[in-house]
């Protein structure tokens, strides 16, 4: 992928960040509004797609570290598991933070309890995974165009 014109790149500079803000908004309000962890995470992951389209693959690939997205995935998955596990004195996945509506009004952690936290965890996981998928698909395009291809190896040492 080649970089697009300066107009596109400037617009991307300005607006790509709003995708993150919007994604986080969808993610954090997932438990009361349409959307949720997966949808919010998918919106945040479009950030990488924007950069790839506007700046071209080579520049993005040289700046982005896959390990960061791995970290997003790992943290998200582990937080999700730990939240499920903490309910264990009652049952696995038991919502131990939930409160009746009257007690929770105005509180910082809403009455839905672990549901909101789990949707944040799912959002982190989906952000990492979808970004990695986009980057991997982009590497797949490079394979067909004969660009600086990494040699296809197995996992032999």
């Amino acid at each position, binding site marked *: 992928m080649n970089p697009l014109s300066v107009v596109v790149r400037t617009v991307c500079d300005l607006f790509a960040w709003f995708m993150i803000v919007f994604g986080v908004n969808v993610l954090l309000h997932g438990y009361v509004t349409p959307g949720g962890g997966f949808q919010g995470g998918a919106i945040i992951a479009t950030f990488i797609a924007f950069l790839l389209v506007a700046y071209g693959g080579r520049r993005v690939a040289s700046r982005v570290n896959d390990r960061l997205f791995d970290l997003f995935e*790992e943290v998200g998955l582990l937080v*999700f598991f730990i939240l499920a596990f903490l309910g264990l004195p009652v049952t696995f996945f*038991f919502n131990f933070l939930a409160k009746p509506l009257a007690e929770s009004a105005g509180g910082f952690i809403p009455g839905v309890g672990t549901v909101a936290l789990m949707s944040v965890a799912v959002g982190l996981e989906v952000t990492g995974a979808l970004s990695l998928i986009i980057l991997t698909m982009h590497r797949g395009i490079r394979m067909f165009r004969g660009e600086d291809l990494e040699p296809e190896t197995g996992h*032999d*040492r």
Partner: protein
Amino acid sequence: MNWNAHLPALLLAVPLFGAFASPVLSPFGRTTRNALLAGLSFVTLLVSLLLMKSVLAGGTAVYVMGGESTGLALPLGMKLPIRIIMEVDAFSAFMAVCGTVASFAGALFSMNYMDKFTALGRFVSLYFLLTLGMLGMMITGDIFNFFVFLEIASIASIGLIAFWRDRPEAVEASFKYMLISQVSSMVFLIAAGALYGKYNALNMAAIGGLIKPGTMEKLALVFLVGTLAMKCGAFPLHMWLPDAYAEAPSGVSCLLVAVSQASLYGLMRVCFSLYGVNLGGAFIPWVIISMGLASMFFGVTMAVVQHEIKRLIGYHSVSQVGYMLLGLGVGMLVLTDARGMAEYGFTAIKGGMFHIFNYTMYKALLFLAAGAVYYATGKRDLNELGGLARRMPFTTGMFVIAAAAISGLPPFNGFVSKLLIYESVFAVHPALAVVALVTSVLTLASFVKVFQTAFLGPEKSSFTAVREVPAGMLFGMGVLTVAVLVATLFPSWTISNLVEPAAKALVDQAGYIGAVMGGGL
């Protein structure tokens, strides 16, 4: 808190934690990763044994994920169960024990076997996900969650079969498996959706209590039987199986054997517990019996001519699945006929069920032994092997035990389960027993061929540097050998303590429904 009540959840939580923790922990080095792989597989095995014990002592266990208490399937006087419900009867617990033994053995074996490859953090993660998917299919009480676990197992298998991605054959096998498993899970989902649309319930016990024979139910049954038979490798739909088993790393082939048994479990659960007395005549049982006969005969005839060792064992999987389909199909045939059930039907079910256990153990052992041969020599073609018995005495010994068990030589466990099947299916029609016997003879023939060409004969000059495989791999094979020998030396103990409760649970449709719906509707 009472840990016994939480065992069904722990059975899924332990491998799930392994899958999520392995990318975080594997950068800490080889020892940490191997400890995670072997340790958590062992814990899963322990949990499944404890679960079996508690189910045998206390009856069917019901676990409601996220419920106010573990057994609260019908809160506030609701008519249909809500939430994700795990329902573990003796049959589920029995399958979970088979699956976790194979998983533990494969994990021990993979510690050394996968050592010379990179990306092992991903390998461990996918291995635990595959274990999780398999166990989930075995203990879930909900037809939609069965689909979810089917997908988890499929996706993990796709990644693991193509783990050696520099081999084009491995990528092809994985792609074939992906196509088959995606089509079959979509068709499964259509069937689950059809049942949900009509009965407003996804819980298998709830649907089983409500179901009435009709055209839509027949259509859904055809979809379910077709897809699950495809996933367990029955004859006309078996083409993915030898490829996938041959190309996956051996520790994974060992686990894939148990995963295909989870699909067989689903097939039996649908036929016995979901439909049960509403199966609508003898048609479906005869379809399953015919699939069993065809799988046995064609599977073994294709196996005899193979000369690649793992592919040969893969074709034997097709033929061995035929035995279970035959035994359980005959049991299904007499499900509504109390006299037939008492005379031969229950024996057939016991035989099929015992064969599930035996098959999982010796087939997994055969795959591990083939992997050990490949690890030591780097060859998988029988024409290039020979004279390994001197170099690899332990592997040879365990291979002989597994080969004798699969060929049904007395006194090995394969003989016991095959005998139960022969003597019971004979009562339906002698031809069924004849096909089963001929298959057994051909199985023996092909394993004599493998043993003779690979392990006996003069020592080859190219194999002078070959050594016995490392201890981890031997321990992995040893676990399965011990399981085979226990079933061989104590067949009546195994049958009365493991197999018979499972067979009783399978035919007891009212008990399965009553455990969730509270004493039946």
